[in-house]
């Protein structure tokens, strides 16, 4: 599955996207976050306080308990500041 990061999350993690093989043991976005946090200090820092992070799956905003499927595109980013 494709994971994307934007703004300061991208800066902390050091890449704008990465691809991970889907693990059927992940039920929700929260499980994926737990897995990602083990990848590097940058990941752990960026995802340490999920109240500061918004999550989108296939371009729709979701909560941490959203169920993941193989092939999903999951994006992590701060609250938006356009306009």
């Amino acid at each position, binding site marked *: 599955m494709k994971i994307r990061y*934007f*703004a300061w999350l991208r800066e902390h993690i050091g890449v704008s996207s990465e691809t991970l093989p889907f693990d059927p043991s992940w039920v929700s976005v929260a499980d994926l976050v737990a897995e990602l946090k083990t990848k590097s200090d940058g990941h752990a820092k960026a995802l340490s306080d999920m109240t500061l992070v918004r999550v989108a799956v296939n371009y729709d905003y979701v909560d941490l308990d959203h169920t993941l499927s193989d092939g999903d595109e999951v*994006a992590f980013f701060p609250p*938006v500041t*356009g*306009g």
Partner: protein
Amino acid sequence: MTVIVTEDDFDLAEIYAKLRTPKSPPSPGAVTVFVGLVREMNNNRPITSMTLEHYPGMTETRLEAIRDQAMQRWPLTGATIVHRVGKLGPNDQIVAVGAASAHRQASFDAANFMMDFLKTEAPFWKSEDTGDGAEWVSARDSDDTAKRRW
């Protein structure tokens, strides 16, 4: 021209002309166009430049959805959202939202609604440079409050 995300500057006259004279009837009796600009100062510090990052694909999807919601909620003859990305300078145009309808209230309300939803749902992030380093702009609680009134 319905939803556009671009690095290029936009021409307000062109946006207005398309809302004023749609390709198919009915013609509107009122057009509201809002333009957002890069502020020259933020928190009493002069801004030298602003960079707008976005999530290609999701940005267009969310903006189309916001425009569709406005079209369903008000009797509009047309609606447009144009948003710039990339590096901008003080006083540059960032965003234009336009709505046309038979009477003024629907066009005012629809333009206002599209801006409030864009502010909280469209995946754009501003980074401001004041000369001593760039900083990500924080989201404002007042934007969430503004959205809730709809």
